[in-house]
């Protein structure tokens, strides 16, 4: 009984911490403006991006050789995005306000992926420049 109660409390705490952690990553990335190259590749103007673009952007991120320091963060946001999709599916007809909130969050995830892509493009450009000069 105590173990079950403890499980409920710890899972609730885990979810709260995990969601807040993912949102802190997304909020930090939201402060970054996309470069011209990234806008061109992704087709994003200003900060306007749809939640459904997340998967497409993630596929582009995967195509870029990684600098090796953002894999875990991308994984965390991808998991958060899946949770949001689940929430959206459940609440779409039951609570439109929740569905609207999940859509906003999904858009944040998509922008996160766009910035991650931008960083990888910049990293690869730096690598190319180093090889050319070396």
């Amino acid at each position: 009984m105590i173990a079950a109660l403890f499980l409920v409390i710890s899972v609730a705490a885990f979810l709260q911490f995990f969601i807040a952690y993912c949102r802190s990553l997304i909020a930090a990335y939201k402060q970054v403006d996309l470069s011209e190259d990234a806008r061109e590749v992704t087709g994003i103007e200003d900060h306007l991006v749809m939640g459904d673009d997340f998967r497409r952007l993630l596929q582009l991120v995967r195509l870029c050789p990684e600098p090796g320091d953002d894999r875990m963060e991308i994984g965390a946001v991808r998991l958060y995005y899946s949770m949001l999709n689940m929430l959206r599916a459940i609440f779409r007809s039951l609570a439109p306000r929740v569905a609207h909130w999940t859509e906003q969050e999904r858009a944040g995830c998509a922008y996160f992926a766009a910035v991650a892509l931008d960083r990888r493009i910049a990293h690869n450009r730096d690598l190319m420049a180093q090889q050319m000069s070396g």
Partner: protein
Amino acid sequence: MLGPLDYFLWFLGISVQAGAVVCAVKARLFTRFFTLNLYLLVASIIGAGRYFFFAYYGLTSIQYSYFYYFSDTFLTICLYFTLMQLYSRVFEEMGVNQYLRVGAILLLGGTAWFSYQVVLGSSDKMLGKFVVELSLNLYFVGLVLTYLLWGAVVKLRETRTQLIQLVLGLGVYFSAFAANYALRHLYPQFSTVWTYLPPLMAIWLPMAWAYTFLKIPVDARLAPARVVAAHR
């Protein structure tokens, strides 16, 4: 008997912990978050020490068991002090560091006393049981304290992104660990799954911290209200 995955997780854990310290040094944050880096450094040294005991004495030896449980308790105490440093960072402008230090020592002493009371009835291997009990209780205290610290971060409108992410990373670690402990008690038949979660979390925490050290500038700011999940 350990398999390739166990070895992989073991060595990955040691490398990631040491790597996170390197990242902190590179970002010139080693002294700024000293106890946090000390914990990572001690964790990687203990990881290597555990491998030495394992290779020399074997997984089922009494020497390995003792080293494992005693080092685990030592690491938990280090993590407890890491949490206290995060507390003093959050409350630094209020000038209550002295009280925090006294409170931390009292709480640690209280947890040790409680753990001692729990194992008092055991006649054999009391010291071994005590260190295991102390480690477990400190994890629970750590989870509660991290939750309170997160509450303080939100309430005090702490805006330092680095600090926010370090606290949240620790919160994820503690809560996952506590959930794993409860699951192991409820569903012992899935022990294989529950065995792999702690080493995975032990890899996750230094990775999250290393990312914060490297990618988040010291002066980056973030409104905690944007992080707390609430729909409008």
